[in-house]
């Protein structure tokens, strides 16, 4: 075991309405790959953002090289030797590779001019050291995703890193590039760098991991050596928890297929996806981040174009002409990002609800304030939106109430299929249960309900049937909630790429 370089103790992070980290403990050792494992939303990225100085609103102690430090800014942390490679690359496309690597620390000559020669040479040295032949003068926009990742790594290594955090570095890489990355990791280990590695790919952990820390719901569950573990062990560590939350499931007597999706394909995103949702059932889509679930729902709703396949509602093909056609065909999509895609935050509650069906609040002279108040008021009450008035700007409501406004807005249409994309993300437990109840009500009314969820417990707790996606494909289908195990679902979700 190498020297313990980092100890994070009792780290707590509170986001509005959510306890993102709850007294987490994490250690990292020199010359080891310290793996962080956990479900979506378990807090992996959050704790690393604390360490990297990105997320400064935390409590707890961080001991680094034996001294207590406060993580205040990314710049300061880099100076200390703590570098992070983000999940999404943070490069500036118009600048060259060398400029990106030296961003914030350009080599300068006396008088302040940029010393291009020295900077380009420095970039070359760094790229060579990780075995990359990317030209240092190329603009980043001309690189592939994998190459951009290599630039990120070179950037992180510019300052002598003692701790290098990699947040899902392989998610966008080809197999060959992954191999190259592992080679670099081995080199860095040999040089005594402590690597913190976040991934969903369990096989990778067996390949390169030395030490495993498992997070679940913002708490640290266990820390143990990787040696001797199996994929099954890790899955169990990730999900094995007591199902204390209650899900108000109601019995399901499904009717005929309402939504049929046949061979939906979008190049590089969705591959021949086919499924159906019947009247009076809740169909869940589980998968890890980037599995293509949101993309699938957006394609069905006409928000994104697709290259092949067909969507049918009640046996009738839905023309691929955009959201308007999908809405008219009876599809409703409650997007995952309600602030940016679901609501007009500056607009009043009532106006937001009315937007999907203005025809319903008109009399023969035009929009009728009276009718609008009646219709929207009734809808808002039916989903129990808590708001001082319908005139209240929706941006001032809590997350749960905003979500209810989104639901009310779609209850305002004659929808046959209601798609909920992550309906309970970022809202408190009480509001979650209310949203489940609304879903049940829709189920009782004979609508087909489709729910995308990244929370396993929720998906299992609410679904009548489940599809699991990975890499733009449906990798498993479970036709009954009976005997559904988290292990089986997780296995389908992490199907090796």
């Amino acid at each position, binding site marked *: 075991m190498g020297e313990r370089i980092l100890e994070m103790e009792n780290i707590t992070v509170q986001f509005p309405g959510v306890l993102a980290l709850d007294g987490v403990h994490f250690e990292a050792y020199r010359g080891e790959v310290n793996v962080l494992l956990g479900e979506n939303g378990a807090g992996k990225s959050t704790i690393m953002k604390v360490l990297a100085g990105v997320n400064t609103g935390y409590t707890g102690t961080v001991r680094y090289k034996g001294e207590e430090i406060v993580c205040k800014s990314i710049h300061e942390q880099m100076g200390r030797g703590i570098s992070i490679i983000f999940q999404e690359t943070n490069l500036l496309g118009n600048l060259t590779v060398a400029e990106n690597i030296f961003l914030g620390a350009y080599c300068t000559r006396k008088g302040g001019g940029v010393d291009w020669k020295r900077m380009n040479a420095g970039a070359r040295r760094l790229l060579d050291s990780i075995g990359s032949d990317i030209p240092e003068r190329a603009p980043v926009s001309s690189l592939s995703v994998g190459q951009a990742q290599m630039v990120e790594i070179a950037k992180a290594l510019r300052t002598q890193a003692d701790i290098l955090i990699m947040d899902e570095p392989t998610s966008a890489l080809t197999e060959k590039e992954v191999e190259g990355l592992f080679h670099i990791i081995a080199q860095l280990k040999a040089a005594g760098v402590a690597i913190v590695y976040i991934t969903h790919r369990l096989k990778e952990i067996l390949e390169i991991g030395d030490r495993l820390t498992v997070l679940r719901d913002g708490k640290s569950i266990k820390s143990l050596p990787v040696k001797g573990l199996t994929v099954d062990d890790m899955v169990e560590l990730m999900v094995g928890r007591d199902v204390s939350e209650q899900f108000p499931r109601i019995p399901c007597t499904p009717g005929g297929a309402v939504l049929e999706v046949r061979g939906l394909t979008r190049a590089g995103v969705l591959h021949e996806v086919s499924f159906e949702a019947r009247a009076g059932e809740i169909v869940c889509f589980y998968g890890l981040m980037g599995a293509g679930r949101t993309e699938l729902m957006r394609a069905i709703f006409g928000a994104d174009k697709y290259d092949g396949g067909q969507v049918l509602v009640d046996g009738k093909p839905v023309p691929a002409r955009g959201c*308007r056609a999908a809405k008219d065909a009876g599809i409703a999509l409650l997007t995952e990002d309600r602030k940016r895609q679901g609501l007009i935050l500056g607009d009043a509650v009532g106006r937001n609800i009315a937007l999907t069906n*203005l025809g319903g609040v*008109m009399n023969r002279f*035009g929009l009728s304030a009276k009718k609008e108040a009646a219709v929207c008021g009734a809808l808002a009450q039916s989903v129990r939106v808590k708001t001082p008035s*319908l*005139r209240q700007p929706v941006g001032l409501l809590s997350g749960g109430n905003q979500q209810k406004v989104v639901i009310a807005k779609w209850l305002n249409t004659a929808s046959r299929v209601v798609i909920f994309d992550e309906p309970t993300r970022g809202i408190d437990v009480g509001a979650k249960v209310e949203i489940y109840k609304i879903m049940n009500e829709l189920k009782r009314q004979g609508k087909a309900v489709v729910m995308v969820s990244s929370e396993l417990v929720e998906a299992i707790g609410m679904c009548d049937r489940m599809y699991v996606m990975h890499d733009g494909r449906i990798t498993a289908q479970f036709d009954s909630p009976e005997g559904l195990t988290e292990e089986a679902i997780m296995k389908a979700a992490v199907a090796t790429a």
Partner: protein
Amino acid sequence: MKDKLKTSRALHFDQLPILLALAALCVVMSVLSGDFLSQYNVVNILQQTTINATLAIGMTFVIITGGIDLSVGSILAFSGIFLGMMLKGGVPAPLAIVLCLLIGCACGLLNGALVAYAKLPPFIVTLGMLSIARGLALIIAGGKNNSTFSAGFRALGTYRIGGVLPIQVVFVIILYLAAHYVLRFRKAGRYLYAIGGNEEATRLSGVNVRRYVAAAYAACGLAAAFASVILTAKLNSAQPSAGDGFELNAVAAAVIGGASLSGGCGSASGTLLGALIMSVLANGLTLLNVSSYAQQVVIGAVIILAVLLDVVRKRKS
């Protein structure tokens, strides 16, 4: 408590601060200058407001969607030149007016199509149109002005109801009533606000966003052509240099009236008040013998002040 989910409409008039500002301005001006409240001067102010008010209402539609139209002054000139040529060429006045309005509308529609369908920035598209329409106006006119039209046509710009109220003021009032109706009581109006508030969310609500954005620019072009009809009749002349720089006054009127360039707010009543504030200010300063150079400084300051007050007010609430 849940029973109280009603829209409380009592005493809700967003434009009250602007109305008060206009009233205060009138009071100050009438104290400073005895001529300000004379019938002659008041009518004069109204008449001076008509062109800017017409352009500004079209601009308001565009600004509500979060866009801007810099080409209205040029479209005014371009459609005006056409109008002048048609009248001179013996086309009956009613037909010439309709064709003129169609030309303005088409220019606006082209703007709108490029913004909505080709996804170009409104600033760039309409800046291009500013130059194109002005250039075309100059080419077609060949450097000459078309003037002296029939008395019937001139009456559109000169006739006074009861010998007092200029008829173009009535036109503008009708135009504003129509705009108010569309913005407040038609689907299209509601969609424009929604698009300005959050275009993506509006699209995902199943609204054909592109069509409505294009329509807003078309309406703006139409308003510019309407202004050209009034101006041509009033001046008894169609000039290729007409409307130069008018676009900025139109933006200013909308913004003083509470429209935000980031979209989602603005109103017909606000814009009308904004246009009136600008002409009252210009008129009052002229009565006070303030030079037109200094007037520019004052009007610029008022624009900034109006938006500053609005921002402060919104931040507080």
